[in-house]
């Protein structure tokens, strides 16, 4: 019973590998093409302005920023959209109420499996990038930044999971929460630094964002991996992620306590 989480993780890994062609197309195609397009864009900007760095990023760093951000967002999103709502609509949600373990623990482990899996992808791509594009190779400092950044990403994934719980559980009241999740992802991608490093936003916008959890979800972990964040920023980020996690999880509890009474168990 104590090792139930291992079984859940093993089951989730089996699911990820179930469609191998899908997996490889996604793994190589998506990341390669997105990187190709993004690097082309920034190359044009750097060349057009005849500069070697912008807002502290050289072209090489910018490429690595997007590579890490793209895979990092997968770590953040964890399981696919609908990981709770679909089961509520289909009525299969009932099984979690019967399991001898907490529903939230189960879903946290299941989502963490995906995040851990994508973290491995990130490590592989990071090493490949250094092997082919960075002449100096990887230093001990780089490794320490890398593992600190991956740790921050995993922590951010747990914060995002609280947000996902809140929205997915709304399925107990409304007919479709898929669009809400997509909207939240759009905003996190933009205001979190997935589309563009936050340093490029106007100063007033950066100051404003500091009051939200967005910068700690993507921008901070990516900058940490690139070695561009200070110890202070990392420490502050760590505590702020925890703060937002506690705050959002209290909302989740309220939604869950009210939502349970709505669930009919027959699906919609």
């Amino acid at each position, binding site marked *: 019973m104590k090792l139930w989480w291992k079984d859940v993780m093993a089951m989730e890994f089996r699911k990820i590998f179930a*469609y191998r*062609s*899908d*997996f*490889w*197309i*996604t793994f190589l*195609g*998506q990341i390669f*093409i*997105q990187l*190709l*397009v*993004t690097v*082309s*864009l920034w*190359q*044009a*900007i750097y060349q*057009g*302005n005849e500069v070697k760095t*912008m*807002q502290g990023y050289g072209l090489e760093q910018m490429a690595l920023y997007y590579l890490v951000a793209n895979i990092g967002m997968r770590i953040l999103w964890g399981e696919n959209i609908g990981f709770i709502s679909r089961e509520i609509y289909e009525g299969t949600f009932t099984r979690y109420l019967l399991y001898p373990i907490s529903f939230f623990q189960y879903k946290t482990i299941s989502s963490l499996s995906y995040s851990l899996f994508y973290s491995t992808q990130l490590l592989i791509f990071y090493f490949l990038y250094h092997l082919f594009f960075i002449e100096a190779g990887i230093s001990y400092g780089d490794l320490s930044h890398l593992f600190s950044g991956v740790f921050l990403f995993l922590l951010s994934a747990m914060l995002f999971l609280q947000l996902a719980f809140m929205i997915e559980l709304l399925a107990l009241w*409304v*007919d*479709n929460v898929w*669009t*809400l999740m*997509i*909207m939240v992802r*759009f*905003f996190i*991608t*933009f205001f979190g630094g997935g*589309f*563009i490093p936050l340093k*490029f*936003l*106007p100063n007033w916008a950066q100051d404003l964002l500091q009051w939200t959890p967005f910068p700690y979800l993507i921008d901070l972990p990516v900058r940490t991996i690139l070695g561009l964040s200070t110890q202070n920023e990392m420490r502050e980020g760590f505590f702020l992620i925890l703060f937002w996690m506690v705050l959002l999880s209290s909302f989740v509890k309220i939604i869950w306590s009210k939502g349970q009474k709505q669930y009919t168990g027959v699906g919609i």
Partner: protein
Amino acid sequence: MRRYFRLYLHFLQFSFSKAMEFRLDFFFKIFMDIAYYSVNILFFKVIFLHTPLLGGWSQEQMMIFVSTYILIDAICMTVFSTNMWWLPYHINRGDLDYHLIRPISPLFFLSLKEFSANSFVNLLMALAIFTYTISNYPYSYEAFDLILLAGLILNGALLYYCCQMLMILPVFWTQSARGFMDLFYSIGIAMERPDKIFTGWRRFIFTFIVPFSLIASFPAKLFIEKFNWPTFLHVIGVSGLFWMIMLSIWKKGLKTYSSASS
């Protein structure tokens, strides 16, 4: 032809009444597309805080391109997207049987049956953004340029549909189109970037192999940099070629299709 047109009107009527059944979802979807438009416009606004030109275009010229791809995306979301979403499931579950026996082109039926009513509201919004951008465009243009752009926007929507179909159709052989569809949405980012940023082999890929630059960037280029035959013929030629390839693979796929649970 008239029969198909009448049928399409029925599709529209049915889709609107279905959309109004789930009103909250209807509005959520509208907000989702507004978020998509805002994020895309903001992205280029932020870029132009740091550069006066991108790929040789000023901010006003870039906004023509942005509003063009937003409009094309809105057309595709309204007309094709729901159908494209369900097509792999129809093929996998054997539902295609019901469409093959109907006295109508199954491609027409499966591609156009579901009209996305909520996206239609967004299409109007995208049209408003496009009209606003054109009316605030500080450079000179003629009526011909505008008509040409309108025509090429429709061509861009068709080319987008062809590319999407080409990513879905392997489902006839692979059983799952998820990987290809994810790949399609990833390549989709190339449509949202001006073609001039691509040089060398990257340019060849995005203008011939997976011609996403032809969907919105070339039409915008013909408007911004004035008409020229080579660019125009490139767009039309590649679009025609992709249409033919898509039709041929569709026919091959139908021959492979082995009915329920295939």
